[in-house]
Structures are given as structure tokens and as C-alpha cells.
């Protein structure tokens, strides 16, 4: 305990550019998370719609796809892609990545990392969204159909606004998980906060202008706290949004509280 709180062991944080170096790494994580979140939400919605489609083959394929990627470890997918992604894909990414992206995101490996995050999370989000849509009363779709709305119109104006709103809590908790999972790309040697932390505690970080070797325990406790703060902010934000939405629509949020409840919901709805 005295080792943990000894001010000497926290000195590294304020010497040289150490803090800035760590935060720069953390920013890479947040950027990867932001990109992955956007694509996962889009792909997740498409997968959910495909799985609910009336075209039997389409829903079957989407079902198998979702079940496979949802049940594999994310780190497994990322590692496999980093090893097996064809070189032309990585080259394509490297030559098309916007120039304003930080240096750490320019490498082709980042493409494998982001693709892995999207493949896994879009499958999980697809299940969440599907459960949300299925939890709606059947009557909603039938009423919309009898009013003369076409299937896309039913989705756009009746089903999705209600179904997705119910799934906001579960979706947010999955996005928090995604944010944490961005640390996994450090395993395929992308220079983000975990790597920066290791460099600081290796004693080779002379370029940050600090001549002390940062104690590894304290460095990673600090990194953990960075994640705790951002994730707490994310969940607070979602609670705020929910309260505002509830006031606006006068409805109640769904009974779904966690990612895992969706499984139960999906089973019930079947």
C-alpha cells in the first residue's frame, strides 16, 4: 500500500512529456473506438434487418454469420485478421487513409484491428437490435401495413424508431465494452496507450525528456483510470439522453437493462 501511494512512485506522471505521451496513446484508442462504433452500428443494423428479412436464404446466412462472429473471442478475430488479411487489402487501406489521421493509424495493421472490432461488435449489436425489434408488439407492424405503408416505410417510420429506442441501454453498454476492447489492438503492435505505457515503464522513454523509469504498476493503474473516467462519462451521457427522450416522447424506456438481457428477450420473442 505504501508502495502504491508513495509520491515518489507517481513522480513520473509530472516529469517530462510522460503524461502527454500517454494521453496521445489514449487518443489513438478513442479514435479507433469512434471509427469502429460508426461502422459497427451501421453494419449491425444491416445484419439485424437481414436476419429479420422474409427472404429465407438471406436471414439464414445472416443468422449463421452473426452467431459465428458473436461466439468467437474478439482477440481471436483480430489476431487472425492481422495474420491472414491479404496484403492488397492492407495496401489499399494505407494508400487511402486520410492524411490528417495520426501516425499510429496509418499502418495497414490498424485496418485489421478495426475490421476485427467491427466484425465482432456488429454481430453483437445486430442481436441487440433484433431483440429490440422483436420485443415490439406484432400489432405495430400489422397496423402500419394495414395503413398502406410499404415494408421499408414500416421499418423507417414505425418499427425502427421504437425498437431501437428500447435498445439504447444495451447498445451503450456494448459500446463501452468496445471502447475497452480497443486495448486489444496493442497485441498486433499498434502504438496505442498500452504500448505507450510499456515504453514508459521500460526505461527507454528518453525522448519524453524524463530520466526516471516509470513504475509499471502505477502507469497501468493510471491507464485503467483513464478508461474508467471515459466509460463513466459515456454511461452518464446515455442516462441523460434517455431521460430527455422519455420526457420528449412520454414513453418509457424498455425493460432491458444489460447486453445480456437481449438474449433472454430474443428467446422469449421466438
Amino acid at each position, binding site marked *: 500500500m505504501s*508502495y*502504491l501511494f508513495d509520491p515518489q512512485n507517481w513522480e513520473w506522471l509530472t516529469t517530462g512529456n510522460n503524461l502527454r505521451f500517454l494521453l496521445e496513446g489514449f487518443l489513438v484508442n478513442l479514435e479507433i473506438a469512434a471509427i469502429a462504433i460508426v461502422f459497427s452500428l451501421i453494419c449491425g443494423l444491416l445484419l439485424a434487418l437481414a436476419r429479420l428479412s422474409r427472404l429465407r436464404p438471406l436471414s439464414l446466412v445472416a443468422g449463421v454469420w452473426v452467431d*459465428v462472429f458473436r*461466439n*468467437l*473471442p*474478439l*482477440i*481471436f478475430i483480430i*489476431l*487472425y485478421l492481422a*495474420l*491472414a488479411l491479404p496484403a492488397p487489402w492492407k495496401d489499399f487501406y494505407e494508400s487511402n487513409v486520410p492524411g490528417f489521421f495520426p501516425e499510429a493509424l496509418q499502418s495497414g495493421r490498424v485496418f485489421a484491428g478495426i475490421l476485427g472490432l467491427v466484425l465482432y461488435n456488429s454481430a453483437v449489436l445486430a442481436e441487440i437490435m433484433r431483440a429490440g425489434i422483436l420485443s415490439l408488439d406484432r400489432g405495430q407492424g400489422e397496423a402500419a401495413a394495414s395503413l398502406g405503408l410499404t415494408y421499408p416505410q414500416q421499418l423507417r417510420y414505425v418499427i425502427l424508431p421504437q425498437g431501437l429506442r428500447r435498445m439504447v441501454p444495451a447498445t451503450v453498454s456494448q459500446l*463501452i465494452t468496445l471502447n*475497452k*476492447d480497443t*486495448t*486489444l489492438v*496493442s*497485441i498486433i503492435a499498434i502504438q496505442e496507450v*498500452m504500448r505507450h*505505457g510499456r515504453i514508459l*515503464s521500460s526505461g527507454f522513454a528518453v525522448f519524453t525528456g524524463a530520466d526516471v523509469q516509470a*513504475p*509499471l*504498476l*502505477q502507469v*497501468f*493503474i493510471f*491507464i*485503467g483510470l483513464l*478508461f*474508467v473516467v471515459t*466509460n*463513466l462519462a459515456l454511461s452518464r451521457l446515455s442516462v441523460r439522453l434517455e431521460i430527455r427522450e422519455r420526457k420528449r416522447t412520454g414513453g418509457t424506456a424498455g425493460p432491458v*437493462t*444489460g*447486453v*445480456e*438481457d437481449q*438474449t*433472454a428477450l430474443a*428467446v*422469449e420473442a421466438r
Partner: protein
Amino acid sequence: MSELWEVLSEHFPELSSGFWVTVRIVAISFVIAMAVGTAVASLRIAPLKPLNWIGGVYVELFRNTPLLVLLFISFAGLRRAGVPIDAWVAGTASLGLYTAAYVAEALRSGVFAVGRGQIDASLSLGLDYPRTMRYVILPQAFRTVIPHLGSLTIAMIKNSAIIGVSLLALPDLLHQARLVNSRTFATNETFFWAAVGYLILTLLATFAVRRLEARYAIHR
């Protein structure tokens, strides 16, 4: 296609030993997660404010920290600080304590589903608080959240793969697959069999949870 079977027949010993290491990691972590999760959940719903606080801080800290960071802290961090912790202890404890935060939240929601009235009733029957929890509330809460605990177990199977590729390097399925791959360069084939291994575990768990749920779960 023939190469697929070749990789399996030649490297079955490594892959299957990795499979069983994964099973063992998950089994140990499961016990830790359930025990600690139940304890933290009891703290969170105890009739004493400071205890609620401690439980809440535990949940928020462990739920919002990446598992990889926990592994770094518990293994390399403690070792650097002079605590000679074993890789198995660090790995299973990290995974267990991480999942325990989620288990605690699940159980808490289960206790709320059981309802305040039952707590009041059993307290007024003369049971003290620990006994109320032990004999009245928790048995029902557990049965209410069986599906939830099941998906946490499946998440734990998937998260266990992080332990093998982190610097703890426990020889689990993914770790072994990587070793085999570095010797054979048959990436697709090796990872295919590793995927089969993980899918066996996760789908078996899904099936088991569904059976348990059908038998014991209380739907509210």
C-alpha cells in the same frame, strides 16, 4: 481441404491441451466470479450506506477497466513491485474479478426483481439480514438471472483468450494456435480449428444455459 485435416492430425496434442487449459481457466474464474460477485452484490444492497458505496466503487472500477489493463496490473505490475505472483493466479483472478463486477450487477437487478416486500416479510419473521439474504432473497435472485449469468459465462469463455496472448502467456487454445501457426504457417487451417474449439465451448454453454433456464428460471 486435405491440409485442413493434416494440421489437425499432426497438431492435435497441442490444440487439445490448449483447449483444456482454456476450460480450466474458465472454470476457476467462474468460481471466483460467482463468489466475489455475490459478495459485492450483498454489499451493494446491504442496509448500510458505506457498504453500498464500497460495492458501487468496486463495480464501477472493475467494469470500466479493460481486462488487458487488469492483467498488466496484476501480473507485470505486481511483479515489478516485488510480489512474486504466479501467472495462473494473476490470470484467473483478473478474469474472475472483472466478471464479478458484472455478476454483482446482474444479481442486484435480480434482487430488485424479487422485491422489497419479501425482504420486509422475512425480516419481520425474525430472520436477521444475512439469513434473509441466504435463505429467501438470493436463491430467488439467482434463478431470476440465470440467462444473464449464462451470457456472462459465455463472455468469460471469450475473454479467457486474452490471457493466452497477453504477457501472462498461459498455454490456452489461442496461445497454442499461435504457436502451431508460427511453426506451420498454415494460418487458415490452424485458426479454423481454434475457432472450432471456441465455438464448441460457447455453443455448449449457450445450450446448457437454455436447459438450465427451462428448468429453473423464474420469469418475472
